[in-house]
Protein backbone atom coordinates (compact mmCIF):
# COMPACT_ATOMS: atom_id res chain seq x y z
CA UNK A 1 0.00 0.00 0.00
CA UNK A 2 1.25 3.50 -0.76
CA UNK A 3 2.59 5.47 2.17
CA UNK A 4 2.25 9.11 3.13
CA UNK A 5 5.75 10.06 1.98
CA UNK A 6 5.12 8.72 -1.51
CA UNK A 7 1.82 10.55 -1.70
CA UNK A 8 3.37 13.80 -0.53
CA UNK A 9 6.29 13.40 -2.97
CA UNK A 10 3.96 12.94 -5.94
CA UNK A 11 1.78 15.88 -4.95
CA UNK A 12 4.82 18.08 -4.37
CA UNK A 13 5.98 17.30 -7.93
CA UNK A 14 2.58 18.34 -9.25
CA UNK A 15 2.00 21.40 -7.08
CA UNK A 16 5.49 22.85 -6.71
CA UNK A 17 7.62 21.43 -9.53
CA UNK A 18 5.27 21.77 -12.52
CA UNK A 19 4.81 18.05 -13.15
CA UNK A 20 2.14 17.65 -15.75
CA UNK A 21 1.15 15.58 -18.74
CA UNK A 22 1.90 17.92 -21.60
CA UNK A 23 -0.52 16.50 -24.11
CA UNK A 24 -2.99 13.81 -25.00
CA UNK A 25 -2.97 13.76 -28.77
CA UNK A 26 -5.63 11.86 -30.67
CA UNK A 27 -4.41 10.73 -34.07
CA UNK A 28 -7.15 10.41 -36.67
CA UNK A 29 -6.66 8.89 -40.12
CA UNK A 30 -8.37 10.78 -42.93
CA UNK A 31 -6.85 8.67 -45.70
CA UNK A 32 -10.06 6.90 -46.61
CA UNK A 33 -11.90 10.22 -47.04
CA UNK A 34 -10.04 11.22 -50.22
CA UNK A 35 -12.55 12.53 -52.75
CA UNK A 36 -12.59 14.38 -56.09
CA UNK A 37 -15.15 16.85 -54.82
CA UNK A 38 -13.65 19.50 -52.52
CA UNK A 39 -16.89 20.44 -50.76
CA UNK A 40 -17.69 16.83 -50.05
CA UNK A 41 -14.15 16.23 -48.81
CA UNK A 42 -14.37 19.19 -46.41
CA UNK A 43 -17.69 17.96 -45.12
CA UNK A 44 -16.37 14.45 -44.53
CA UNK A 45 -13.24 15.73 -42.77
CA UNK A 46 -15.32 17.90 -40.44
CA UNK A 47 -17.65 15.02 -39.60
CA UNK A 48 -14.84 12.53 -39.02
CA UNK A 49 -12.94 14.82 -36.66
CA UNK A 50 -15.92 16.07 -34.68
CA UNK A 51 -17.30 12.54 -34.26
CA UNK A 52 -14.03 10.83 -33.36
CA UNK A 53 -12.84 13.56 -31.00
CA UNK A 54 -16.24 14.43 -29.49
CA UNK A 55 -15.28 13.21 -26.01
CA UNK A 56 -11.54 13.91 -26.09
CA UNK A 57 -11.51 17.12 -24.08
CA UNK A 58 -14.07 15.94 -21.53
CA UNK A 59 -12.18 12.67 -21.03
CA UNK A 60 -8.93 14.58 -20.54
CA UNK A 61 -10.57 16.85 -17.96
CA UNK A 62 -12.10 13.87 -16.12
CA UNK A 63 -8.72 12.12 -15.87
CA UNK A 64 -7.15 15.36 -14.70
CA UNK A 65 -9.68 15.64 -11.91
CA UNK A 66 -9.60 12.02 -10.78
CA UNK A 67 -5.84 11.67 -10.58
CA UNK A 68 -5.07 15.25 -9.66
CA UNK A 69 -2.56 15.63 -12.50
CA UNK A 70 -2.83 18.57 -14.93
CA UNK A 71 -3.14 17.60 -18.60
CA UNK A 72 -2.10 20.82 -20.27
CA UNK A 73 -3.14 20.15 -23.85
CA UNK A 74 -5.67 18.03 -25.64
CA UNK A 75 -4.83 17.90 -29.32
CA UNK A 76 -5.63 16.21 -32.59
CA UNK A 77 -3.30 15.07 -35.34
CA UNK A 78 -4.55 14.03 -38.77
CA UNK A 79 -3.16 12.35 -41.88
CA UNK A 80 -0.92 14.76 -43.83
CA UNK A 81 -3.40 16.90 -45.73
CA UNK A 82 -1.28 16.92 -48.91
CA UNK A 83 -2.23 13.23 -49.25
CA UNK A 84 -5.87 13.58 -48.25
CA UNK A 85 -6.50 16.60 -50.48
CA UNK A 86 -4.44 15.48 -53.46
CA UNK A 87 -7.34 14.53 -55.72
CA UNK A 88 -9.68 17.35 -54.69
CA UNK A 89 -7.32 20.33 -54.56
CA UNK A 90 -6.30 21.89 -57.85
CA UNK A 91 -4.72 24.99 -56.32
CA UNK A 92 -3.27 26.35 -53.10
CA UNK A 93 -6.56 28.17 -52.44
CA UNK A 94 -8.34 24.80 -52.49
CA UNK A 95 -6.00 23.54 -49.76
CA UNK A 96 -6.71 26.62 -47.62
CA UNK A 97 -10.38 25.58 -47.46
CA UNK A 98 -9.26 22.34 -45.76
CA UNK A 99 -7.17 24.30 -43.26
CA UNK A 100 -10.29 26.29 -42.39
CA UNK A 101 -12.27 23.08 -42.00
CA UNK A 102 -9.64 21.69 -39.63
CA UNK A 103 -9.76 24.93 -37.64
CA UNK A 104 -13.53 24.83 -37.41
CA UNK A 105 -13.53 21.18 -36.31
CA UNK A 106 -10.83 21.84 -33.70
CA UNK A 107 -12.85 24.72 -32.25
CA UNK A 108 -16.02 22.61 -32.22
CA UNK A 109 -14.42 19.86 -30.11
CA UNK A 110 -12.48 22.35 -27.97
CA UNK A 111 -8.90 21.11 -28.49
CA UNK A 112 -5.86 23.38 -28.17
CA UNK A 113 -4.30 22.59 -31.54
CA UNK A 114 -4.79 20.42 -34.60
CA UNK A 115 -1.73 19.21 -36.50
CA UNK A 116 -1.33 17.56 -39.85
CA UNK A 117 -1.52 20.40 -42.35
CA UNK A 118 1.53 18.68 -43.69
CA UNK A 119 3.43 17.36 -46.67
CA UNK A 120 6.04 14.60 -46.75
CA UNK A 121 8.50 15.53 -49.45
CA UNK A 122 11.77 13.98 -48.33
CA UNK A 123 12.63 12.95 -51.89
CA UNK A 124 10.38 15.00 -54.12
CA UNK A 125 7.17 17.01 -54.29
CA UNK A 126 4.01 15.99 -56.09
CA UNK A 127 1.91 18.79 -57.56
CA UNK A 128 -0.40 18.46 -54.53
CA UNK A 129 2.53 18.66 -52.10
CA UNK A 130 3.66 21.87 -53.74
CA UNK A 131 0.14 23.38 -53.68
CA UNK A 132 -0.10 22.58 -49.99
CA UNK A 133 3.32 24.03 -49.17
CA UNK A 134 2.53 27.20 -51.11
CA UNK A 135 -0.77 27.49 -49.23
CA UNK A 136 0.85 27.35 -45.78
CA UNK A 137 1.24 31.14 -45.23
CA UNK A 138 -2.41 31.84 -46.05
CA UNK A 139 -3.58 28.72 -44.16
CA UNK A 140 -1.76 29.73 -40.98
CA UNK A 141 -2.76 33.38 -41.25
CA UNK A 142 -6.44 32.56 -41.67
CA UNK A 143 -6.75 29.94 -38.89
CA UNK A 144 -6.03 29.83 -35.15
CA UNK A 145 -5.61 26.17 -34.22
CA UNK A 146 -3.99 24.64 -37.29
CA UNK A 147 -0.34 23.57 -37.15
CA UNK A 148 1.70 22.76 -40.21
CA UNK A 149 4.77 20.64 -40.83
CA UNK A 150 6.84 19.56 -43.81
CA UNK A 151 9.27 16.64 -43.89
CA UNK A 152 12.15 17.72 -46.11
CA UNK A 153 14.53 14.81 -45.88
CA UNK A 154 15.46 11.49 -44.32
CA UNK A 155 18.44 9.26 -43.74
CA UNK A 156 17.09 6.86 -46.37
CA UNK A 157 16.32 9.42 -49.09
CA UNK A 158 18.66 12.35 -48.56
CA UNK A 159 17.52 15.97 -48.62
CA UNK A 160 15.06 17.55 -51.01
CA UNK A 161 16.90 20.83 -51.62
CA UNK A 162 14.15 22.15 -53.91
CA UNK A 163 11.70 21.86 -51.02
CA UNK A 164 14.24 23.32 -48.58
CA UNK A 165 14.69 26.33 -50.87
CA UNK A 166 10.91 26.72 -51.15
CA UNK A 167 10.47 26.57 -47.35
CA UNK A 168 12.83 29.51 -46.87
CA UNK A 169 10.44 31.71 -48.79
CA UNK A 170 7.32 30.11 -47.26
CA UNK A 171 8.61 30.90 -43.75
CA UNK A 172 9.30 34.51 -44.74
CA UNK A 173 5.88 34.82 -46.32
CA UNK A 174 4.19 33.31 -43.24
CA UNK A 175 6.03 35.83 -41.04
CA UNK A 176 4.86 38.65 -43.29
CA UNK A 177 1.22 37.56 -43.39
CA UNK A 178 1.07 37.29 -39.58
CA UNK A 179 3.19 40.36 -38.83
CA UNK A 180 0.35 42.00 -36.87
CA UNK A 181 0.87 39.26 -34.26
CA UNK A 182 4.68 39.18 -34.18
CA UNK A 183 4.80 36.68 -37.06
CA UNK A 184 3.16 34.01 -34.88
CA UNK A 185 2.28 31.94 -37.95
CA UNK A 186 5.89 30.71 -37.99
CA UNK A 187 5.47 29.34 -34.45
CA UNK A 188 2.88 26.97 -35.89
CA UNK A 189 5.13 25.77 -38.72
CA UNK A 190 7.97 23.28 -38.41
CA UNK A 191 10.16 21.49 -40.93
CA UNK A 192 11.68 18.07 -40.26
CA UNK A 193 14.25 15.55 -41.31
CA UNK A 194 13.20 12.00 -40.36
CA UNK A 195 9.78 13.14 -39.05
CA UNK A 196 8.18 10.49 -36.80
CA UNK A 197 4.68 9.23 -37.64
CA UNK A 198 3.50 9.26 -34.03
CA UNK A 199 4.67 12.57 -32.59
CA UNK A 200 2.13 14.02 -30.12
CA UNK A 201 3.86 17.40 -29.85
CA UNK A 202 3.01 20.50 -31.85
CA UNK A 203 3.67 22.05 -34.24
CA UNK A 204 4.97 18.82 -35.79
CA UNK A 205 2.25 16.31 -34.95
CA UNK A 206 0.63 14.48 -37.84
CA UNK A 207 -1.00 11.07 -38.05
CA UNK A 208 1.42 9.07 -40.18
CA UNK A 209 0.37 6.72 -42.93
CA UNK A 210 1.91 3.80 -41.01
CA UNK A 211 -0.63 4.28 -38.20
CA UNK A 212 -4.01 2.63 -37.54
CA UNK A 213 -7.33 4.48 -37.94
CA UNK A 214 -7.20 6.19 -34.56
CA UNK A 215 -4.60 6.24 -31.84
CA UNK A 216 -3.88 7.93 -28.51
CA UNK A 217 -0.35 9.30 -28.07
CA UNK A 218 0.78 11.04 -24.91
CA UNK A 219 3.63 13.48 -24.30
CA UNK A 220 5.00 13.83 -20.79
CA UNK A 221 7.02 16.65 -19.33
CA UNK A 222 8.77 17.57 -16.10
CA UNK A 223 12.01 19.59 -16.31
CA UNK A 224 11.13 21.16 -12.95
CA UNK A 225 10.98 17.75 -11.28
CA UNK A 226 14.40 16.77 -12.66
CA UNK A 227 15.89 20.10 -11.53
CA UNK A 228 14.57 19.65 -7.96
CA UNK A 229 15.84 16.07 -7.82
CA UNK A 230 19.30 17.24 -8.90
CA UNK A 231 19.30 19.97 -6.24
CA UNK A 232 19.12 17.23 -3.63
CA UNK A 233 22.35 15.59 -4.91
CA UNK A 234 24.26 18.81 -5.59
CA UNK A 235 27.99 18.21 -6.31
CA UNK A 236 27.79 14.40 -6.45
CA UNK A 237 29.63 12.40 -9.14
CA UNK A 238 28.33 11.52 -12.62
CA UNK A 239 27.07 8.10 -11.54
CA UNK A 240 24.77 9.62 -8.92
CA UNK A 241 23.77 12.39 -11.35
CA UNK A 242 22.77 9.91 -14.05
CA UNK A 243 20.98 7.54 -11.66
CA UNK A 244 18.96 10.43 -10.24
CA UNK A 245 17.85 11.59 -13.70
CA UNK A 246 16.91 8.03 -14.66
CA UNK A 247 14.81 7.46 -11.54
CA UNK A 248 13.07 10.79 -11.93
CA UNK A 249 12.36 10.19 -15.62
CA UNK A 250 10.90 6.80 -14.68
CA UNK A 251 8.46 8.41 -12.24
CA UNK A 252 7.44 11.14 -14.67
CA UNK A 253 6.87 8.65 -17.47
CA UNK A 254 4.78 6.31 -15.30
CA UNK A 255 2.24 9.09 -14.89
CA UNK A 256 2.12 9.51 -18.65
CA UNK A 257 1.62 5.77 -19.10
CA UNK A 258 -1.27 5.80 -16.61
CA UNK A 259 -2.95 8.75 -18.32
CA UNK A 260 -2.47 7.19 -21.76
CA UNK A 261 -3.99 3.87 -20.68
CA UNK A 262 -6.96 5.59 -19.02
CA UNK A 263 -7.61 7.84 -21.99
CA UNK A 264 -7.33 4.91 -24.38
CA UNK A 265 -9.79 2.80 -22.36
CA UNK A 266 -12.34 5.56 -21.85
CA UNK A 267 -12.30 6.67 -25.48
CA UNK A 268 -12.15 3.13 -26.86
CA UNK A 269 -9.16 4.10 -28.98
CA UNK A 270 -5.91 2.11 -28.98
CA UNK A 271 -2.91 3.42 -27.05
CA UNK A 272 -0.04 4.27 -29.38
CA UNK A 273 3.04 5.60 -27.64
CA UNK A 274 4.41 7.73 -24.87
CA UNK A 275 6.77 10.45 -26.02
CA UNK A 276 9.45 10.55 -23.32
CA UNK A 277 10.16 14.21 -23.35
CA UNK A 278 11.37 16.92 -21.07
CA UNK A 279 9.34 19.79 -22.46
CA UNK A 280 9.90 23.15 -20.79
CA UNK A 281 7.38 25.97 -20.43
CA UNK A 282 7.96 29.68 -19.83
CA UNK A 283 6.91 29.14 -16.18
CA UNK A 284 9.63 29.77 -13.60
CA UNK A 285 11.22 26.47 -12.57
CA UNK A 286 10.10 24.54 -15.66
CA UNK A 287 13.30 24.96 -17.63
CA UNK A 288 15.87 22.70 -19.30
CA UNK A 289 18.50 25.46 -19.00
CA UNK A 290 17.98 25.47 -15.22
CA UNK A 291 18.93 21.78 -15.22
CA UNK A 292 22.21 22.63 -16.96
CA UNK A 293 22.90 25.30 -14.38
CA UNK A 294 22.17 22.83 -11.58
CA UNK A 295 24.58 20.38 -13.26
CA UNK A 296 27.30 23.01 -12.96
CA UNK A 297 27.23 25.19 -16.06
CA UNK A 298 27.15 28.92 -15.44
CA UNK A 299 24.65 29.36 -18.28
CA UNK A 300 23.16 27.19 -21.01
CA UNK A 301 25.53 27.54 -23.95
CA UNK A 302 28.74 27.49 -21.88
CA UNK A 303 31.39 24.93 -22.89
CA UNK A 304 30.14 21.57 -21.61
CA UNK A 305 26.53 22.25 -22.60
CA UNK A 306 26.47 19.70 -25.43
CA UNK A 307 27.87 17.03 -23.10
CA UNK A 308 25.38 17.93 -20.37
CA UNK A 309 22.50 17.74 -22.85
CA UNK A 310 23.71 14.42 -24.24
CA UNK A 311 23.84 13.00 -20.74
CA UNK A 312 20.42 14.38 -19.83
CA UNK A 313 18.79 13.17 -23.02
CA UNK A 314 20.18 9.67 -22.71
CA UNK A 315 19.28 9.24 -19.05
CA UNK A 316 15.73 10.46 -19.66
CA UNK A 317 15.37 7.75 -22.31
CA UNK A 318 16.94 5.06 -20.13
CA UNK A 319 14.63 5.89 -17.22
CA UNK A 320 11.56 6.35 -19.37
CA UNK A 321 11.85 3.26 -21.57
CA UNK A 322 11.08 0.87 -18.72
CA UNK A 323 8.21 3.01 -17.46
CA UNK A 324 6.15 2.68 -20.61
CA UNK A 325 5.04 -0.27 -22.70
CA UNK A 326 5.46 1.64 -25.97
CA UNK A 327 7.78 4.56 -26.54
CA UNK A 328 7.90 6.70 -29.67
CA UNK A 329 7.49 10.18 -31.06
CA UNK A 330 10.40 12.53 -30.55
CA UNK A 331 11.45 11.27 -27.10
CA UNK A 332 14.18 13.37 -25.50
CA UNK A 333 14.85 16.84 -24.19
CA UNK A 334 13.39 19.82 -26.03
CA UNK A 335 15.48 22.97 -26.20
CA UNK A 336 13.17 25.69 -27.44
CA UNK A 337 14.37 29.20 -26.73
CA UNK A 338 11.16 31.19 -26.28
CA UNK A 339 9.48 28.53 -24.16
CA UNK A 340 12.25 28.30 -21.56
CA UNK A 341 13.12 31.07 -19.08
CA UNK A 342 16.66 29.80 -18.59
CA UNK A 343 17.36 29.64 -22.34
CA UNK A 344 16.06 33.19 -22.78
CA UNK A 345 18.36 34.33 -19.96
CA UNK A 346 21.28 32.54 -21.61
CA UNK A 347 20.61 34.29 -24.94
CA UNK A 348 20.23 37.68 -23.26
CA UNK A 349 23.50 37.19 -21.37
CA UNK A 350 25.33 36.31 -24.59
CA UNK A 351 26.01 32.72 -23.52
CA UNK A 352 23.89 30.98 -26.12
CA UNK A 353 24.17 31.49 -29.87
CA UNK A 354 22.44 29.98 -32.87
CA UNK A 355 25.61 28.01 -33.67
CA UNK A 356 25.78 26.49 -30.17
CA UNK A 357 22.11 25.59 -30.37
CA UNK A 358 22.84 23.83 -33.65
CA UNK A 359 25.59 21.80 -31.99
CA UNK A 360 23.22 20.90 -29.15
CA UNK A 361 20.65 19.57 -31.60
CA UNK A 362 23.11 16.80 -32.55
CA UNK A 363 22.45 15.14 -29.20
CA UNK A 364 18.87 16.06 -28.25
CA UNK A 365 15.46 15.07 -29.46
CA UNK A 366 14.52 17.82 -31.85
CA UNK A 367 16.29 20.82 -33.27
CA UNK A 368 16.32 24.57 -33.62
CA UNK A 369 13.06 25.32 -31.89
CA UNK A 370 11.20 28.59 -31.35
CA UNK A 371 14.10 30.77 -32.36
CA UNK A 372 13.33 34.37 -33.27
CA UNK A 373 15.65 36.01 -35.82
CA UNK A 374 15.59 39.43 -37.53
CA UNK A 375 12.69 39.95 -39.93
CA UNK A 376 15.03 40.81 -42.78
CA UNK A 377 16.88 37.46 -42.64
CA UNK A 378 16.98 36.41 -46.29
CA UNK A 379 15.03 33.48 -47.66
CA UNK A 380 18.21 31.72 -48.73
CA UNK A 381 19.77 32.16 -45.28
CA UNK A 382 16.67 30.60 -43.70
CA UNK A 383 16.98 27.73 -46.19
CA UNK A 384 20.69 27.44 -45.34
CA UNK A 385 19.89 27.15 -41.62
CA UNK A 386 17.26 24.53 -42.43
CA UNK A 387 19.65 22.59 -44.71
CA UNK A 388 22.31 22.48 -41.96
CA UNK A 389 19.84 21.15 -39.43
CA UNK A 390 18.38 18.60 -41.85
CA UNK A 391 21.89 17.40 -42.66
CA UNK A 392 22.52 16.70 -38.96
CA UNK A 393 19.39 14.56 -38.87
CA UNK A 394 20.15 12.78 -42.12
CA UNK A 395 23.71 11.82 -41.22
CA UNK A 396 23.00 10.94 -37.58
CA UNK A 397 19.83 8.94 -38.28
CA UNK A 398 17.76 11.06 -35.95
CA UNK A 399 14.87 13.46 -36.12
CA UNK A 400 15.82 17.10 -36.46
CA UNK A 401 13.55 20.06 -36.91
CA UNK A 402 13.56 23.79 -37.44
CA UNK A 403 10.92 26.17 -36.11
CA UNK A 404 12.35 29.59 -36.77
CA UNK A 405 10.56 32.93 -36.71
CA UNK A 406 11.94 35.80 -38.81
CA UNK A 407 9.90 38.40 -36.94
CA UNK A 408 8.70 41.01 -39.36
CA UNK A 409 9.98 44.49 -38.54
CA UNK A 410 12.18 43.35 -35.61
CA UNK A 411 15.95 43.37 -35.30
CA UNK A 412 18.63 42.06 -32.93
CA UNK A 413 18.07 43.58 -29.47
CA UNK A 414 14.28 43.53 -29.77
CA UNK A 415 12.07 41.06 -27.94
CA UNK A 416 9.05 39.30 -29.31
CA UNK A 417 6.07 38.13 -27.25
CA UNK A 418 4.11 35.10 -28.44
CA UNK A 419 2.06 34.56 -25.30
CA UNK A 420 0.93 31.44 -23.44
CA UNK A 421 3.03 28.31 -23.74
CA UNK A 422 4.92 29.81 -26.71
CA UNK A 423 6.53 32.38 -24.40
CA UNK A 424 8.71 35.29 -25.50
CA UNK A 425 12.11 35.52 -27.18
CA UNK A 426 14.99 37.88 -27.79
CA UNK A 427 15.80 38.29 -31.49
CA UNK A 428 19.00 36.33 -32.11
CA UNK A 429 21.71 37.39 -34.55
CA UNK A 430 22.23 35.32 -37.69
CA UNK A 431 25.54 34.81 -39.52
CA UNK A 432 25.68 37.69 -42.03
CA UNK A 433 27.51 35.78 -44.78
CA UNK A 434 25.29 34.51 -47.58
CA UNK A 435 24.65 31.04 -49.03
CA UNK A 436 22.42 31.98 -51.96
CA UNK A 437 24.49 30.30 -54.69
CA UNK A 438 24.50 27.04 -52.73
CA UNK A 439 20.77 27.11 -51.93
CA UNK A 440 19.78 28.15 -55.47
CA UNK A 441 21.22 24.97 -57.00
CA UNK A 442 18.41 22.66 -58.10
CA UNK A 443 17.82 19.06 -57.04
CA UNK A 444 18.60 16.87 -54.07
CA UNK A 445 21.42 15.95 -51.73
CA UNK A 446 21.75 12.17 -52.17
CA UNK A 447 21.12 9.72 -49.35
CA UNK A 448 24.22 9.20 -47.21
CA UNK A 449 26.29 6.05 -47.04
CA UNK A 450 25.16 3.65 -44.32
CA UNK A 451 28.48 2.15 -43.51
CA UNK A 452 31.96 3.51 -42.75
CA UNK A 453 30.57 5.53 -39.82
CA UNK A 454 33.01 8.05 -38.52
Amino acid sequence: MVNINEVLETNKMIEKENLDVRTITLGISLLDLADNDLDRLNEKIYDRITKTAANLVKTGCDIEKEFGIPIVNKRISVTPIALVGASACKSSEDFVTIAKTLDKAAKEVGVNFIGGYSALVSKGMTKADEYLIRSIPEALASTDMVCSSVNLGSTKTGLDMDAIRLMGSIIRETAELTKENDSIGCAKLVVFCNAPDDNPFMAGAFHGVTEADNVINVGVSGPGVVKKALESIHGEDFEVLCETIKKTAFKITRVGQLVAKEASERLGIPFGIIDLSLAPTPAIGDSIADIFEEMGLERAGAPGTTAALALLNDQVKKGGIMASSYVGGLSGAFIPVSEDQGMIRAVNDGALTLEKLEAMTCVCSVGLDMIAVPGDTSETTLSGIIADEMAIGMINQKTTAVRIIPVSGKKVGDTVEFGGLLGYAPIMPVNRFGCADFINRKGRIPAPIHSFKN
Partner: protein
Amino acid sequence: MKKTIITVVGKDSVGIIAKVCTYLAEIKVNILDISQTITGGYFNMMMIADISEGSRDFSEINDDLTKLGEDIGCVIKIQREEIFDMMHRL
Protein backbone atom coordinates in the same frame (compact mmCIF):
# COMPACT_ATOMS: atom_id res chain seq x y z
CA MET B 1 -13.22 -1.78 -4.11
CA LYS B 2 -12.46 1.72 -5.42
CA LYS B 3 -9.45 2.94 -3.48
CA THR B 4 -8.80 6.65 -3.28
CA ILE B 5 -6.25 8.76 -1.49
CA ILE B 6 -7.49 11.76 0.46
CA THR B 7 -4.86 14.27 1.54
CA VAL B 8 -5.36 17.15 3.92
CA VAL B 9 -2.70 19.84 4.13
CA GLY B 10 -2.90 22.98 6.24
CA LYS B 11 -2.15 24.72 9.53
CA ASP B 12 -2.53 22.35 12.46
CA SER B 13 -5.68 22.96 14.47
CA VAL B 14 -8.18 21.09 16.65
CA GLY B 15 -10.65 18.75 14.99
CA ILE B 16 -9.35 18.50 11.43
CA ILE B 17 -9.42 14.70 11.35
CA ALA B 18 -12.78 14.63 13.13
CA LYS B 19 -14.43 16.90 10.58
CA VAL B 20 -13.12 14.99 7.56
CA CYS B 21 -14.04 11.62 9.12
CA THR B 22 -17.52 12.81 10.05
CA TYR B 23 -18.16 13.83 6.47
CA LEU B 24 -16.87 10.51 5.13
CA ALA B 25 -19.00 8.56 7.63
CA GLU B 26 -22.09 10.50 6.57
CA ILE B 27 -21.63 9.45 2.95
CA LYS B 28 -20.68 5.85 3.89
CA VAL B 29 -17.08 5.96 2.74
CA ASN B 30 -14.93 3.35 4.48
CA ILE B 31 -11.52 4.52 5.71
CA LEU B 32 -8.89 1.79 5.28
CA ASP B 33 -5.83 3.58 6.61
CA ILE B 34 -4.86 6.93 8.10
CA SER B 35 -1.41 8.41 8.60
CA GLN B 36 -0.26 11.89 9.42
CA THR B 37 2.85 13.94 9.88
CA ILE B 38 3.62 17.54 10.73
CA THR B 39 6.33 19.23 8.66
CA GLY B 40 7.32 22.86 9.00
CA GLY B 41 4.27 23.63 11.14
CA TYR B 42 1.99 22.20 8.45
CA PHE B 43 -0.35 19.35 9.12
CA ASN B 44 -0.26 16.59 6.49
CA MET B 45 -2.78 13.79 6.62
CA MET B 46 -3.35 10.96 4.19
CA MET B 47 -6.29 8.60 4.19
CA ILE B 48 -6.81 5.57 2.03
CA ALA B 49 -10.56 5.28 1.55
CA ASP B 50 -12.90 2.96 -0.33
CA ILE B 51 -15.65 4.93 -2.03
CA SER B 52 -17.35 1.99 -3.79
CA GLU B 53 -20.18 1.73 -1.22
CA GLY B 54 -20.49 5.47 -0.72
CA SER B 55 -23.66 7.43 -1.37
CA ARG B 56 -21.89 10.04 -3.53
CA ASP B 57 -19.68 9.60 -6.57
CA PHE B 58 -16.04 10.64 -7.01
CA SER B 59 -16.75 13.99 -8.56
CA GLU B 60 -19.33 14.95 -5.88
CA ILE B 61 -16.99 13.90 -3.09
CA ASN B 62 -14.24 15.97 -4.72
CA ASP B 63 -16.45 19.08 -4.72
CA ASP B 64 -17.64 18.47 -1.13
CA LEU B 65 -14.08 17.99 0.16
CA THR B 66 -12.82 21.10 -1.62
CA LYS B 67 -15.59 23.08 0.09
CA LEU B 68 -14.97 21.43 3.48
CA GLY B 69 -11.28 22.31 3.11
CA GLU B 70 -12.14 25.96 2.53
CA ASP B 71 -14.34 25.93 5.66
CA ILE B 72 -11.63 24.52 7.93
CA GLY B 73 -8.69 26.33 6.32
CA CYS B 74 -6.98 23.30 4.73
CA VAL B 75 -6.41 22.03 1.21
CA ILE B 76 -8.20 18.71 0.81
CA LYS B 77 -7.65 16.61 -2.29
CA ILE B 78 -9.03 13.29 -3.38
CA GLN B 79 -7.15 11.31 -6.02
CA ARG B 80 -7.40 7.78 -7.33
CA GLU B 81 -4.76 5.53 -5.85
CA GLU B 82 -3.33 4.38 -9.19
CA ILE B 83 -1.26 7.51 -9.78
CA PHE B 84 0.77 6.83 -6.63
CA ASP B 85 0.99 3.10 -7.30
CA MET B 86 2.21 3.68 -10.83
CA MET B 87 4.86 6.16 -9.78
CA HIS B 88 6.25 4.35 -6.74
CA ARG B 89 5.67 0.63 -7.37
CA LEU B 90 7.10 -1.61 -10.06
